[in-house]
C-alpha cells in the first residue's frame, strides 16, 4: 500500500503527465494498467464510450494506428470535488497535437486542440496510487487552422 489520505493535485498532475506521456509515446497498452481502474472504468470520448480496460485497449489500438507525431501537454489539473479520502473528481485541461494521413492524399493533416476533461479518480486498493475511474471529454477547442476530427 502506498500513499493514503486525500488525493492531492500534485498526485493528479503526476497521473495526468504519465497518462498523456504514454499516449504520446504510443506505449505498450499494458503500461496503462497501473493508471486505470481495474473495475468500473468508463471513458467518454467524442465518438465513443469505452468500458473497462478492454474498451480502452480497443480504442487505444485504433488511435495509435490513426495518429502520429503526437504531443500532449497538461495545461491544468484542478480538483473540483472530494468524494472521500480515496476518491475525487478533477477537471483536466490538455493541449493535444497530432498528425494523420489518409493515403493516397499528398499531405498529412495536423490537429491542434485544447480539450477539457472531467476525471473521476480513486486510490487503487492495492497500490494506494490514484487511478482513473471515469474520464469524460467535456470540450474540444480547435486552434485556428487545425484539422478536425
Amino acid at each position, binding site marked *: 500500500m502506498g500513499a493514503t489520505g486525500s488525493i492531492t493535485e500534485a498526485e493528479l498532475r503526476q497521473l495526468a503527465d504519465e497518462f498523456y506521456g504514454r499516449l504520446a509515446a504510443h506505449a505498450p497498452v499494458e503500461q496503462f494498467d497501473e493508471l486505470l481502474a481495474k473495475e468500473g472504468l468508463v471513458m467518454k470520448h467524442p465518438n465513443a464510450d469505452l468500458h473497462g480496460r478492454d474498451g480502452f485497449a480497443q480504442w487505444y489500438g485504433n488511435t495509435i494506428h490513426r495518429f502520429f507525431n503526437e504531443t500532449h501537454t497538461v495545461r491544468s489539473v484542478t480538483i473540483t470535488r472530494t468524494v472521500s479520502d480515496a476518491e475525487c473528481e478533477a477537471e483536466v485541461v490538455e493541449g493535444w497535437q497530432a498528425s494523420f494521413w489518409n493515403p*493516397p492524399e499528398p499531405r*498529412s493533416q495536423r490537429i491542434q486542440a485544447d480539450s477539457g476533461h472531467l476525471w473521476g479518480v480513486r486510490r487503487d486498493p492495492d497500490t494506494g496510487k490514484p487511478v482513473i475511474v471515469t474520464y469524460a471529454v467535456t470540450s474540444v477547442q480547435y486552434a485556428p487552422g487545425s484539422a478536425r476530427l
Partner: protein
Amino acid sequence: MNESTPITESEVQALAANWYAKLDAHAPVEDFMPLLAQQGLEMHYPEGVFKGIEGFQEWYNRVIRLFFDEHHELKEVAVLQPADPANATVVVNWQGSFWKPPEPRSQRIVLDSYHTWVVKRSPDTNKPAILKYVVEKLEYAKGSARL
C-alpha cells in the same frame, strides 16, 4: 516541328518540373500519361525495374500510399547533345515522410537523387516524353531516414 527536331535542355527542364510537381501532388495517374512514352517505357528504381505504363502504374500506386508531404526540387538538368531521343542527367532533391503504424513518429527522408533519362518525342503530341528513367544513386542528407 517534326519528330526529328532535337530535344533541347529547356524542354527537358520543363518536362522534369512538370513530372516532379505531379509526384508532389499525388496527381491522378492519368495525368502522367502525356509525360511518358506509351511504348518501351523503362523505369529503374532502387526497389526494382518497372516496364511499360502498367509498370509505372504499379510503382506509382504503391509510393503514393507509402509517402506523404513530399517535396521535389530540381537541382540540375543537363542534355549532353540535343537529339531525339536525347540523353539527359537530372538531379533532384527529394523530401518525403513515411509512417509505420503504430510507431509514434513518422520519419523523414531527405536526399539528392541522381538520374539518367532518355527522352523521346511523342508521335502523338510531338512533345518530349520519358522513355527511360534510371535512378543512378541516392545521396542521403545527414539525419535522413533511409529507404
